[in-house]
């Protein structure tokens, strides 16, 4: 996260490969389900033996004694509908919810976040020197109206994408944050409205940032968890 500061996002998880290295973020939407982006995984039937998620700690690489850290193996990956760029990861066992680990809400189907809503991104990714890269960082971004964003992107915006406005200070997600949440406060609850996807440049000050619009895929998410 570039232009952010250390913060607390108890639904944000660190996705780690067999060597235990963090490589992407994710969001805990059910005790045994994490949402991330397809861009982080080699294929829809990737063998994720030894891959795991880490929750309950603010540290990217916590010491052995971190009191609330949970590390859970990933059992399965399920790819979302075409174009969605979403994946769901089924954990080998349910996460234990506590003050450090919480579920983020899923939006209502096809819900549109009102323009101007200030949402929050979180991750352990690249800070480009703007904050401590060893801890979880968060940053706030205002949602940009769909048509305004479409104009700024000269008509290239897809229905499945959600925009936040560029900030002069250069605030945004970067390498290692992909798959993490864009969370917006709605009715006093934090709701997963967007998923961070790779962009060509981090924290642009001249273009809106794009996220996967989760409300378009909520029916698929519920279907996967049900089935």
């Amino acid at each position, binding site marked *: 996260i570039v232009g952010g500061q250390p913060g607390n996002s108890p639904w944000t998880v660190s996705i780690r490969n067999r060597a235990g290295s963090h490589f992407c973020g994710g969001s805990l939407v059910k005790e045994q389900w994490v949402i991330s982006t397809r861009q982080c995984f080699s294929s829809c039937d990737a063998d994720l033996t030894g891959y795991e998620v880490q929750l309950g700690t603010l540290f990217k690489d916590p010491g052995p004694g971190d009191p609330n850290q949970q590390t859970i193996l990933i059992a399965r990956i399920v790819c979302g509908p075409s174009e969605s760029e979403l994946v769901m990861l089924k954990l080998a066992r349910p996460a234990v919810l506590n003050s450090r680990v919480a579920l983020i809400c*899923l939006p209502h189907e096809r819900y549109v976040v009102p323009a101007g809503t200030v949402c929050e991104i979180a991750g352990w990714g690249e800070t480009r020197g703007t904050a401590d890269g060893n801890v979880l960082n968060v940053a706030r971004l205002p949602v940009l109206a769909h048509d305004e964003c479409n104009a700024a992107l000269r008509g290239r915006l897809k229905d499945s994408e959600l925009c936040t406005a560029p900030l002069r200070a250069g605030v945004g997600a970067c*390498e290692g944050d992909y798959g993490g949440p864009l969370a917006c406060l709605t009715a006093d609850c934090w709701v997963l409205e967007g998923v961070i996807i790779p962009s060509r440049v981090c924290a642009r000050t001249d273009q809106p940032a794009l996220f996967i*619009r989760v409300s378009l895929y909520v029916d698929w998410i519920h*279907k996967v968890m049900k089935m």
Partner: protein
Amino acid sequence: HRSPLNDFERLRATELLAAPTDPLPVLLEWGSAEQCAQHCVTSLTCRAFHHNRQSQLCQLLPWTQHSPHVQLQKNIHYDLYQKKDYLRDCIVADGSSYRGTRATTEKGLRCQHWQATTPHDHRFLPSPRNGLEENYCRNPDRDKQGPWCYTIDPNVRHQTCGIKKCEDAVCVTCNGEDYRGTVDHTESGTECQRWDLQHPHKHPFHPDKYPDKGLDNNYCRNPDSSERPWCYTTDPGREREYCRIRICKKRPRPHNVTTGCFRGKGEGYRGRVNITVSGIPCQRWDTQSPHQHHFVPEKYPCKDLQENYCRNPDGSEAPWCFTTHPTIRIAFCFHIRRCPEELSTPECYHSHGEHYHGHISKTRKGITCQPWAAQAPHVPQISPLTHPEAHLEENYCRNPDNDSHGPWCYTMDPRTPFDYCAIKPCSGSTVPSIVENPDAVTFEQCGRRDERLQWKGR
């Protein structure tokens, strides 16, 4: 620090079944796999053993999978350990310990039985110790050319069998990540430590954690994209060492080469993106500054480490590069587009495809659909009984629950309950665009956090 298991090849969840006529194997003994191996190594007749991980019982066996009238069978309670010398089809050193079943000479002559003294009389008669059995090639006199035998051709008394040394039997391509030969010594002659043991050296390469790296027994492997196959050694003073294995002459053609996008982990990506997502130029592979590294282009001939292009020489999640920023060593190049991997057919569907009655019966990944009326591999929650009006015929793609992402089906892949089909929405299909804000929404049991738990408190 040498484990007795080093003499054995392990087959997981496997049992060696013998024909009923054979004498029953030696009684069960109690102990760890290493203790069983110790018993087997000291026994003249033992060639293999079953080890039951739960009961810690082991059964010594006087035969291997190459013996007559035996067969391998799946059995999740047992691991089968067989002496390498009886299984390997190559020799170590002069092949004195070779106990394989080759029975022809290098010129193709059949070997005379060691028991026999015609057409050639000789003094090498079988004994429990010398391994001379049947008419298999052996090296009872430590001949430098390796195992040999008397031949059934009266004009040729004996001839070498020409069995290759293990370091020559299977050659290495590129950096040997897919080497699966049976060399188990390093280039200095030190024996390798088994991958499934953590002594004398602790290490992260558990065979279970890296199922695709072939970390069998104590064979030389390359699980971490080093320059060539290596192993942890049984010498406590030397953690790991390269192995000497013949390099294949032919270099394999890289498969899955892409340039405008990357597929899978991008190991075949040969495009020219050379800048990280954060806009930092990549460091050239042939320089060691600002970051020192071992991915020297000439040592990784198959990885195309040209210029400063994003590449994936070590099987990471995606193409990556060293960056020219002194404090940022490595960055993924996730901003390179992934190649679309989905199949698609000329058919299309309108709206959500709830009225699609075509005959496509494959998912977008090419997996065959499960018939709607079937109960396996997935017990359906939606079936012709529950949705009689949805035309759930055969295993055709349908949309009985009006899924907004189109026709789908249960799949024949046990790991994938359902997936969408290889049918695209018809262009201009009037899927309602995003609904403006619905009436006030509420949420339960989610999205709350203890705002006090800010960083300061930590």
